[in-house]
């Protein structure tokens, strides 16, 4: 199960994720992120309540990070408050850089 809670300030979307971002839940979320980035919105992902992240979820984070860095001046993407278990997965794949803001 994944619950998402979005709040908007200007063109910055803060998305709070709660539950699991895995192979089942990631497809809807992937579509939403792509849609927001397509419309040139900045995204802040709050992972405070995200208990589980699998590679399917990690791929979305990496994709969003890459998209934001390809268009450096136009859109921003950042990840805040990840839990230890989530950080562990990110470290396992040497992708800590996506956590730097």
């Amino acid at each position, binding site marked *: 199960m994944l619950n998402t809670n979005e709040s908007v300030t200007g063109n910055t979307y803060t998305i709070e994720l709660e539950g699991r971002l895995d192979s089942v839940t990631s497809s809807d979320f992937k579509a939403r992120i792509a849609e927001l980035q397509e419309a040139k919105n900045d995204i802040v992902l709050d992972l405070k309540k995200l208990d589980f992240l699998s*590679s*399917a979820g990690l791929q979305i984070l990496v994709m969003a990070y890459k998209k934001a860095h390809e268009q450096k001046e136009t859109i921003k993407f950042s990840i805040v408050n990840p839990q230890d278990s989530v950080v562990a997965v990110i470290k*396992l794949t040497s992708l800590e850089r996506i956590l730097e803001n």
Partner: protein
Amino acid sequence: MNKLKKFYNNSSISKKIYLQTIVVAITTLLLFAIFILSSLIYQYNYAKKIGTESTANTDAKLTEILSKYNVDNSETSQLTNLINENNQQIINSIENNIYIVLILSMILIALLIFITYKSSKKLSKKIAKPINEIANQLEISKINNNRTDAELQIASEIQTGFLAKPLPAFPHRNDVLLYADMIPANVVGGDLYDYFEIDDDHIALVIADVSGKGISAAMFMLVTKTILENQAKDNSNPKSVLSNANKILATNNEAGMFATCFFVVINTKTGDCEYANAGHNLPIIVRNNSNITEFIGDVKSVPLGIFEDTKYQTGKFHLDIDDRLIMYTDGVTDTFNDHNQEYGTDNLVKFIDSRQFTKISTITATNALVRDLQIHSKNTEQFDDITVLLFARTENNSFHQINITPEIECLNDILLFLDANISHVQPATRNNIELIVDEVFANIVNYSFKDVPDYLHEIVSVGIDFQSDNIELKFIYGGTAFDPTKSTTTGLSEDISKRDIGGLGIHIIKQLSTSLKYERTNEKNIFIVNLKDE
């Protein structure tokens, strides 16, 4: 609703009313004051002018008159002075009068300002009063709503607490599989399922549907559940259990509530089953050897709680190893789609026939059926509780295993299976197991069964075995030959922005495991992952 009050008190509205009234009042009063003052000043000047003119006139006239009477100058000037003094006194008295009027006017103006201020405040309060009253009313109704919500929530918790039993059921037994799901239409439901062991070889299953909805249904349901369990403790004969329970429920049942109920006692060793039915939907059995679905029992029976003297009959059937017993409430068959078509018994049987219910785990079969109901009822409101219960006898098997279909949603079934099997491992290990399972299963679904048209007829087995601190995960699946160990790991040292984002999963598996093994035997892929319990 306090917000409304605060909004009124703090914000603009009240202040605006104040300020506007005061500004209008003060402006009017100022204009009034200017008018009074200017008229007073004019009067003063006019009086002074008349006084001065009359003094001059008096002088001239006196001099003229007195000259006629040969009065000497000194006397004339004395008289003139006298008259002038008198005139001056008149002017002074006018002046004094003007001052008094001026002061009185000032006092009057001050008084008027004060009254205006007071009345504007009163007015604003007067407006505030009904607004506050509305706010208070809303507040009270909100409190009442909250209270009802809170009470419903408590009722729901009590109900859930009574119903809460581990699912999958009987985690200590490896000769039976039982899984169930109940989706209430409201916060509290009137559906009931229950299971308990009568002795080592006998398991009782109960499914019931109480008339009505809400708190009353929930209360009657809890009473029914308790009575049935107590009756079954002393007596495993289904007809006596239902007959006795009915008598208790029908006596003193002034609310006229009733419940349909199917009660079955299963001999887990022999598979012989005895049941009694109180007007409930007929359960379905899917035979493992023939894959044929059949209904059990007779519908012509009276629900519990209506007539005190109803006697129920015991019926019998046999449940072979790996046969599936499917019990459900009419919320399943009465689920409507947005064209007002019910799911019905036909669709239920059709769905069961379309899946290999006897090959997949009860968890997966239950969840697949619930998903199909959700697809059917998409965009419609659920109006009845939905309950599904699946039971099977299995061969004794020490290897903990779940059989699922290669659909990505079945990952959730594996998680439920893990809940029942790995509750004793460390959280970090559990996270690692879930990461591996997610990755391997997603690969199986996306690669091995990508082009398999009848993939829903295929079975994927996921097993877990513990040997001291080693954990073995075993995936057995058909479809295309696919060796996850041969997947390429992308160079992780490369720049992220240039990196291909596939291949993360196999990298994770390799990092978390102590060994990986793949083989293909008899058209089956077998993939084994070993990891340490941290």
